[in-house]
């Protein structure tokens, strides 16, 4: 039982991290109807920026305090992501108003490779460390219930808390504010949104900036677990099944989807893995996504699309 719980917790924590990345996709899709292929690259470049400035700032200024250096690096990274959002809107999105979804998708594919390359030109392409002082030591909980207790990683718990706060904030933003309503309006119809006076350009900068900050948080957490390296971009691919499961337009869906995928991966690996010779973890999420596409293409929480014929 204790082992099962350990696996379950491990899965939940991993799932929370997938959710964080998935959120970035959902944000941009919700607000502009664009499937943003560049989300993974944004995670990488945000993490790179954070890692490098956390190194550079003490080196340049002789700052002693690590926490302060991290804080400053975080601030610089937020500004960097904002600038990135602004440049993307200026140079790419502005010229693609009212274009087909596919056109915009291809544009984000281009943006992906640009960010990948340019980010590494700016910040270097080695493996870097992010150390934001997350507690690394695993702890045992529930000693009284099970013999030996259940082993969980404190780092994962902190990460999950951060993700939960971020999600709550974003849900309020989308559902309760006029700007959130404007974002949803833009996603549905560019032309109509403009006709009622919604400034398309500003909305896009806002949403890419918010997605950038989400990418930054995801990048910091993943980076401090795995190190900041090119393979971070592939984390984004792990988030794809999450959004298929949760629905492209749902913030809570991204979270629940992430948790299901995380738990499913770990449990299937541990309990089904031995039967088929292991390696389930790698493809389990994609299989699950495929099954969902067959029976519920809009995902768990996505908006059901009814087309009048």
């Amino acid at each position, binding site marked *: 039982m204790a082992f099962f719980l350990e696996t379950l917790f491990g899965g939940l924590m991993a799932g929370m991290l997938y959710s964080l990345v998935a959120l970035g996709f959902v944000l941009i899709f919700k607000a502009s109807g664009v499937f943003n292929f560049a989300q993974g690259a944004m995670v990488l470049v945000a993490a790179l920026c954070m890692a490098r400035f956390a190194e550079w700032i003490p080196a340049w200024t002789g700052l002693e305090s690590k926490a302060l250096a991290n804080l400053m690096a975080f601030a610089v990274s937020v500004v960097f992501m904002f600038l990135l959002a602004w440049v993307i809107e200026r140079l790419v999105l502005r010229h693609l108003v009212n274009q087909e979804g596919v056109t915009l998708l291809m544009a984000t594919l281009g943006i992906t490779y640009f960010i990948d390359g340019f980010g590494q030109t700016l910040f270097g392409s080695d493996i870097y460390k992010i150390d934001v002082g997350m507690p690394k030591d695993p702890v045992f909980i529930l000693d009284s219930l099970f013999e030996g207790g259940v082993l969980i990683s404190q780092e994962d718990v902190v990460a999950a808390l951060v993700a939960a706060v971020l999600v709550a*904030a974003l849900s*309020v*933003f989308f559902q*309760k*504010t*006029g*700007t959130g*309503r*404007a974002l*949803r*309006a833009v*996603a*549905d*119809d560019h*032309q*109509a*949104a*403009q*006709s*009622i*006076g*919604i*400034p*398309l350009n500003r909305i896009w900068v806002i949403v890419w900036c918010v997605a950038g900050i989400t990418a930054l948080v995801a990048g910091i957490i993943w980076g401090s677990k795995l190190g900041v390296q090119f393979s971070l971009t592939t984390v984004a691919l792990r988030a794809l099944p999450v959004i298929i499961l949760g629905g492209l*337009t749902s913030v809570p869906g991204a979270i629940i989807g992430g948790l299901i995928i995380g738990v499913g991966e770990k449990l299937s690996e541990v309990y089904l893995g031995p039967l088929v010779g292991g390696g389930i973890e790698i493809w389990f999420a994609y299989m699950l996504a495929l099954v969902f596409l067959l029976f519920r293409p809009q995902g768990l929480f996505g*908006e059901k*699309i*009814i087309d*009048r014929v």
Partner: protein
Amino acid sequence: MSKVIGDVILDVQNISLRFGGVKALTDISFNVKEHEIRSIIGPNGAGKSSMLNCINGVYTPSEGSITFRGQTFGHMNSRQVAEMGIARTFQNLALFKGMSVIDNIMSGRNLKIKSNIFMQALRIGPAQREEEEHREKVEHIIDFLEIQAFRKTPVGQLPYGLQKRVDLGRALAMEPQVLLLDEPMAGMNLEEKQDMSRFILDVNDEFGTTIVLIEHDMGVVMDISDRVVVLDYGKKIGDGTPDEVRNNEDVISAYLGTGH
């Protein structure tokens, strides 16, 4: 019904619009006076929607200018036009399909929202009261259009006639001075057309909104319009009261064809 028609509020001067080699509009001039219902009619492809899209800032005219309340503009985008107080509805519905009726109409209040996003999120300061004020205006519009029962329904699930009403409601929420209606009755049955005509007349009457209307149904146009512009092949062939237009030779031949 006695209403006071005011001065010229919208003046369209010598508008031409070309798409490549195609001349969609050629040298069109007309004006719209305050509080009137001004219709633009013409056979299919006459350039009615193009004209409306020029006023709305979707298209930029190749030549000519448009003056709205003394302000002349050539290059404008839809958002700037919206800020000036011109709202529109769409021929092929452009509603926010995933959003509820209330949210659709609330989105029309976007330009009027003053509090910043943090105040809105936290519901502090004037944000709460402001939201309530907007909500009240929106509820008024919903009552007016008789769609109370569908408040929370995603508009994508509503029947066509009701979607048209929501489209009108969203435009009304902007409290525009001029309302551009692009075929508000297309595809409706007689009863729905009568309802929509009544709403248009009431908007004009109660809110004092000036209305520019594109419509195919001649009966409706002749009934509710104060003045009518007739376009054919991108040119203006008639302009005047419904009676004047009805008896205009060019208009008759455009609609009925001429003997050759």
